C-alpha cells in the first residue's frame, strides 16, 4: 500500500505487502521463463529475479500521481505499480489486450492510467525523458515525482551525464534509481567505469546521492521514502544506488560465460525474498501461514494472467499503421 509518509511502518500488514509483491514478481517471471521456452513469449525477455527488493521498496514511496520510467527489465516495476498481471502477460503474448496492445512486448510495457511511461530498450534512453516529465511537473508547479530506473551500465552513456546535469541544474523532481547489479550484459562494473562507486559519480553533479543494499527491501523502502520526501520538499533530484544482483541470465540467450556459478550462488544465498522472509518470520511479523496464503494468491494471479493472455486476441493486421500518428489532427 502506498503511503505518503517519509518513514517505513513495519507492521504486519506492511511486511505481508512487501513479501507479497516480491513473490508476485518472482513467480510471475518464473512463469515467463517457462512460457519463453514454450515460445509463447518471444523477442527479448529480461528477468528481474533477484532484484525484486528494488522495485518493491522504491514503489512504496510513490503516489499514484507520480510517474515512472523504466527499462527493458521492467516487469517488476509494472507489476508493483499496479499494471494488471494479465495485461502484462497478454502484452508478451502479443495480444491486443496487452498493456501496449501487443505492439511493445516485454521490453515496452506502458500504462497511461498508472503513469507508467515504459519500458525503454535503449540503455540510458529513458533518462532524458524522465527529466522532461519532471520538468513539466516543475513548470506546472505540480508536486509530483518522476522515478527513473536504470542499470549501472547506463552510467557510462552520455545520456546519463546530460540528464543528471539537467535535472540537478534545473532542480527537477526526479528520483534516479540505479539498479546496480554489477553487470551490463557480460560487462562487469569494473570494466565499464573508472569510478565504480556510482553514487560518487552522482554527487559530482551536486546531486544528493546515496547507496543502499538493494537486496534488503526495507532498507530500499526507507531510503526511497527519505529520497521522495526530500524531492517533494526541495523539488531537487535525488540519486539512489541500489546494490543488487541479477540471479538469471541477462536475457534468455545468455550463456553467462562472464561470471562463475559460485558468485551467483553467493548472491542467491542472500536473495531479497529469502532474507526478508527469514527476518520477518524470526521477528514474528509474519507466519508460515501468511507465506502459504501469499503463494496461493500469487499462483492464482499468475494462472489468471496466463489464462487472460491465452484468451486474448490478435490485433487485426489492417490496424498495423494505426497509432503511427494521431487519427485526427486539429
Amino acid at each position: 500500500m502506498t503511503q505518503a509518509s517519509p518513514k517505513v511502518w513495519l507492521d504486519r500488514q506492511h511486511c505481508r505487502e512487501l513479501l507479497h509483491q516480491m513473490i508476485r514478481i518472482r513467480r510471475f517471471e518464473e512463469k515467463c521463463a517457462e512460457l519463453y521456452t514454450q515460445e509463447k513469449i518471444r523477442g527479448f525477455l529480461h528477468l528481474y529475479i533477484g532484484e525484486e527488493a528494488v522495485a518493491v521498496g522504491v514503489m512504496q514511496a510513490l503516489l499514484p500521481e507520480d510517474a515512472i520510467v523504466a527499462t527493458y527489465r521492467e516487469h517488476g516495476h509494472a507489476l508493483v505499480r499496479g499494471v494488471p498481471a494479465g495485461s502484462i502477460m497478454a502484452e508478451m503474448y502479443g495480444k491486443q489486450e496487452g498493456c501496449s496492445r501487443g505492439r511493445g512486448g516485454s521490453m515496452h510495457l506502458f500504462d497511461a492510467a498508472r503513469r507508467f511511461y515504459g519500458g525503454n530498450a535503449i540503455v540510458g534512453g529513458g533518462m532524458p525523458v524522465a527529466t522532461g516529465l519532471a520538468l513539466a511537473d516543475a513548470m506546472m508547479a505540480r508536486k509530483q515525482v518522476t522515478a527513473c530506473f536504470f542499470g549501472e551500465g547506463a552510467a557510462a552513456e552520455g545520456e546519463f551525464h546530460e540528464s543528471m546535469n539537467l535535472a540537478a541544474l534545473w532542480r527537477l523532481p526526479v528520483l534516479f534509481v540505479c539498479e546496480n547489479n554489477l553487470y551490463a550484459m557480460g560487462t562487469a562494473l569494473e570494466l565499464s567505469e573508472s569510478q565504480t562507486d556510482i553514487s560518487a559519480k552522482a554527487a559530482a553533479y551536486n546531486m544528493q546521492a546515496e547507496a543502499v543494499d538493494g537486496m534488503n527491501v526495507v532498507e530500499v523502502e526507507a531510503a526511497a521514502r527519505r529520497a521522495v520526501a526530500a524531492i517533494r520538499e526541495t523539488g531537487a533530484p535525488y540519486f539512489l544506488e541500489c546494490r543488487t544482483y541479477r540471479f538469471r541470465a541477462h536475457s534468455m540467450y545468455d550463456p553467462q560465460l562472464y561470471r562463475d556459478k559460485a558468485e551467483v550462488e553467493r548472491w542467491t544465498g542472500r536473495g531479497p525474498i529469502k532474507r526478508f522472509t527469514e527476518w520477518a518470520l524470526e521477528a514474528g511479523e509474519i507466519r508460515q501461514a501468511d507465506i502459504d496464503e501469499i503463494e496461493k494468491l500469487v499462483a492464482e494471479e499468475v494462472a489468471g494472467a496466463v489464462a487472460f493472455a491465452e484468451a486474448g486476441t490478435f490485433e487485426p493486421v489492417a490496424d498495423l499503421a494505426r497509432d503511427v500518428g494521431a487519427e485526427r489532427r486539429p
Partner: protein
Amino acid sequence: MTVMSYRDAVRGAIREAMQSDPRVFLMGEDVGHYGGCYAVSKGLLEEFGPERIRDTPLSESGFTGAGIGAAMGGLRPIVEIMTCNFSLLALDQIMNNAATIRHMSGGQFNVPVVIRMATGGGRQLGAQHSHSLEGWYAHIPGIRVLAPGTVADAGGMLAPALDDPDPVLIFENALLYNDTADVDWPASVDIDHAAVRREGTDISLITYGGSLGKTLAAADQLAAEGISAEVLDLRVLRPLDEDAILATVARTRRCVIVDEGWQSGSISAEIMARIIEKGFWYLDAPLARVCSKEVPIPYAHHLEEAALPSITGIVEACRAVLGR
C-alpha cells in the same frame, strides 16, 4: 499585410504561441541570454523570463529528450537545436523515442513536441556546419517534417505544428532568415500540402526550403528562353503531398527536382520514386534532379558554390530534360 523578415516571422510565431498558450515554452542552446544564435529569439527572454525561454547546456540528446518528456507531461515544448549538424547527437531521442512512443505504447502516449533547427550550407561554414538533413529525416515514420521556404510559412507553420499531437520537426534554412516579404499576419497556413509557387506548362520544378529561391530564379531565366516552368514548393517533407507531386507532373509531363541534400539517398530520389510508381505513364522524358555534390561541404567559397545546387545547374538540367 506586414513587411517582415523570415526571422521576425519565426519570432512572431513563437511569441504568439507563448502568449496564447501557457504550456508553450522554448528551450535550446543560447535561446535566452544570447538572443538566439540567429537572433530568432531576441527579446523573448525579457518578455517571458528564463523559465519559458530556457537556455540549455550543450546537451543535445539531454534537452531534446527532456522536450519529449515534457511534451508527454502535458507541456508544448519548442525545442531548438541550434543547427541540424548538431541534431545527430539527439537522433536517438528523436528516432527511438519521439517517433515510436505512440505506436509502441499502443496509442496510449503521444509526444506533442516541436523541434526546430537551422539547416543548409552556403555560408562557408565547412563540412561540419553545412548539412542539409531535412530530407534524410523525412525517412522516419512517426514524425512530421516541415521545411518553410517563405516568410509566410516561417511564421505560419509553428502554430499548427504546436497543435499537432505528434512530433514535428521544422527545418529553417539559415540563409532565409534575412529574407523579407509582405505577409498576412497573423499567418495561418496548413502543414499538409505542397504549394504551387509559380504556374507553368512545360516542366515542373519540385523543391522546398532554401532551394525555393534558386528554383524560382531559374524559372525566371527559363521563361526568358521561352520555357514555362511550374514550381512546386513541397513545404512538408513528411508525409509528402503525393497528390500535388503527381498533379504537377501530370500537367507538364516533365520534371526536375531541386534539393540541397547530398544526391544519393536524398529526398529527390523519393520524389522520383513516387512519380515512377504512380505517374510513370505521364512522363515524356526522364526525370532529373539537382542536388548537392557528394562531398563534405568545403569552406572555400568557389568550392562550396560548386558543391551546392545553383541556378545555372537548374536551368541546365531543365534544358537537358527538355532536349534543348
